């Protein structure tokens, strides 16, 4: 029997399988940020041991950082302390830090790929659930808890039980106006926010093959939102071309050797998955969520489910509660509903392609007076590119505010928040109650759908604007 892509990488990284227990899994690359690392550093210090492989860890500050005036001290004291502690810890333990002011600083899942640190065949972990993003390169990448961060510090390994495997095949051409964010929102809506619990997912099929690396990252990023341990895509020419020439990519002979290895990374034709799902790309519409978990999504021109027609009592209660929080009605359509905020950013959709797509749509147009529009590039490098390509002028003319790199309004941990009761179309990945600020109402959508709402001031079917 053939091997899956997951098995090939997993098997190569198992140092030891504990009888009746988990496996000792070797980690090639570890990323850390200010929120989930301090206790792990402390733990190592209490044990009086140094970091085992400090050069395989890279740090950045992203969750807590402000996205304006980054040259000034952070105002919130606890946030400032976390960021300062990260600096101290990295200095003390020999960890490379791309902190505020560094040209490589940015959201951890944006900088790894753009610097060429993320490479096919690797195992990658970070104390952050959206580590699954890196799976787009054909890696086993997943989020870990603080104890596990400490494990990696101590031994460059984590203890892991092998998950089950699932393959999601998507074939055919996408409709006009439908982008990778819609694909993943469609999948989650179809299998629910817990539909892939216990699985590691591989995305395959002709639609996936035709996507750019950045589009693939958006899909892998949200794997966790359907409960999956992680998501991955087999590397191909698109992947190799993307990695080649980036600051940390192998060069010369080393590149040729690596490339030969990477070309072996695919699921064998006779590999068997524990679960498999097939999707026709033509069935996927531009999507939007109406509820308080990413699985509560509908076609942007569709209707919210009618409560009376939901058979499952638990599900019904769940949706009823979500609608109450969101201030929305069962059976209603969202098209034409006013929104007050548009947030384009986060590790899901803050890369240069996302911003190019948005710029192309808004060029020569102006935002609606009723909306505040925030564009937050995922990294300093993306921000630099935005200026180099003159996208900042397009945004400025449209009345969009462009800010500095960070997680920003993706989570209410820094200064960027959505006020209670107001609606925000967001390109981020979570619409949980209070995620963007207490009482904030989040509608998840693609950058195109978000930009369309910025122009019209209401929820809009992007297909009508292009």
């Amino acid at each position: 029997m053939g091997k899956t892509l997951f098995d090939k990488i997993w098997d190569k990284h198992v140092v030891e399988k504990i009888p009746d227990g988990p496996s000792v899994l070797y980690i090639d690359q570890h990323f850390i940020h200010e929120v989930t690392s301090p206790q792990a550093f402390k733990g190592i210090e209490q044990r009086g041991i140094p970091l085992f492989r400090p050069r395989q860890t890279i740090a950045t500050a992203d969750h807590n950082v402000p996205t304006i005036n980054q040259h000034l001290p952070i105002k919130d004291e606890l946030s400032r302390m976390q960021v300062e502690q990260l600096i101290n810890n990295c200095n003390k333990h020999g960890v490379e830090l791309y902190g505020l002011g560094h040209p490589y600083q940015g959201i951890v899942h944006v900088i790894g790929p753009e610097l060429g640190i993320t490479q096919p065949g690797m195992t990658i972990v970070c104390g952050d659930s959206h580590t699954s993003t890196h799976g787009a390169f054909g890696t086993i990448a997943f989020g870990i808890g603080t104890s596990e961060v400490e494990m990696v510090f101590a031994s460059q390994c984590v203890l892991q039980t092998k998950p089950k495997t699932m393959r999601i095949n998507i074939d055919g051409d996408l409709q006009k106006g439908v982008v990778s964010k819609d694909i993943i929102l469609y999948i989650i809506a179809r299998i629910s926010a817990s539909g892939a619990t216990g699985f590691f997912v591989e995305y395959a099929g002709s639609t996936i093959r035709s996507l750019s690396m950045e589009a693939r990252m958006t899909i892998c990023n949200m794997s966790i939102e359907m409960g999956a341990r992680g998501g991955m895509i087999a590397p191909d020419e698109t992947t190799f071309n993307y990695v080649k020439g980036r600051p940390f990519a192998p060069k010369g002979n080393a590149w040729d050797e690596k490339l030969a290895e990477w070309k072996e990374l695919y699921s064998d034709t006779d590999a068997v998955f524990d679960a498999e799902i097939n999707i026709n790309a033509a069935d996927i519409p531009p999507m939007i969520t109406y509820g308080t978990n990413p699985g509560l999504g509908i076609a942007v021109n569709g209707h919210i489910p009618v409560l009376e027609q939901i058979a499952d009592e638990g599900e019904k209660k769940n949706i009823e509660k979500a609608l109450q929080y969101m201030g929305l009605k069962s059976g209603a359509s969202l098209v034409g509903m006013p929104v007050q905020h548009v947030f384009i950013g986060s590790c899901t959709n803050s890369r240069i392609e996302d911003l190019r797509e948005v710029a192309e749509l808004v060029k020569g147009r102006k935002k609606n007076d009723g909306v505040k529009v925030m564009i937050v590039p995922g990294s300093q490098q993306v921000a630099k590119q935005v200026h180099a390509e003159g996208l900042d002028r397009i945004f400025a003319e449209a009345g969009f505010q462009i800010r500095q790199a960070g997680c920003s309004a993706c989570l209410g941990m820094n200064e960027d928040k959505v006020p209670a009761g107001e609606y925000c179309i967001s390109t981020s990945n979570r619409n949980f109650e209070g995620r963007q600020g207490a009482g904030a109402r989040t509608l998840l959508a693609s950058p195109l759908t978000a930009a369309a709402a910025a122009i019209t001031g209401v929820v809009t079917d992007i297909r009508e604007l292009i």
Partner: protein
Amino acid sequence: MENIDTDQIIPARFLKATTRDGFGKNLFRDWRYDNDSEAKPKTDFALNNPLYSGDILVAGKNFGCGSSREHAAWAILDYGFNAVVSSFFADIFKNNALNNGVLPVTVSELFLQKIFEQGNEATLSIDVEAQTIRIDATGEQESFELNPYKKTCLLNGYDDIDFLLSRREAITKFEKESA
């Protein structure tokens, strides 16, 4: 009490700390005090009743559900508990507890009721080696499940990190071979 979620065990506002210590004083914070004031303990809450003390926490089913915050396990340990007994634990909490040397003991609903019937002064004995829990007054006992690897860790007083540290040589060898 059933369905105790980790937001109750340790409320979100205490997550900005940078150490693992001191979470114990905020364990069940919002259930322990009125208006968040240590001067106003809620007398009807068990942790505030001197009759209840010890190192085993007994709770209703589905303990530790909700957010995956490891801080919940830290708070329980820091408060002084070494074991939690319930008829059902949320998956992630169970792992987090074991990773921090807190033993989650899953007992039958019936056994749990028997413990509660004993009232204030009940004492329990847990034998990790034999994987049994006993109500001292009546001698009734039940066995519980424990992953053999985790059991070795608990019995030897070491955790996953100690285990991994003991494997550093093998890991170094692995690095050389796969380079």
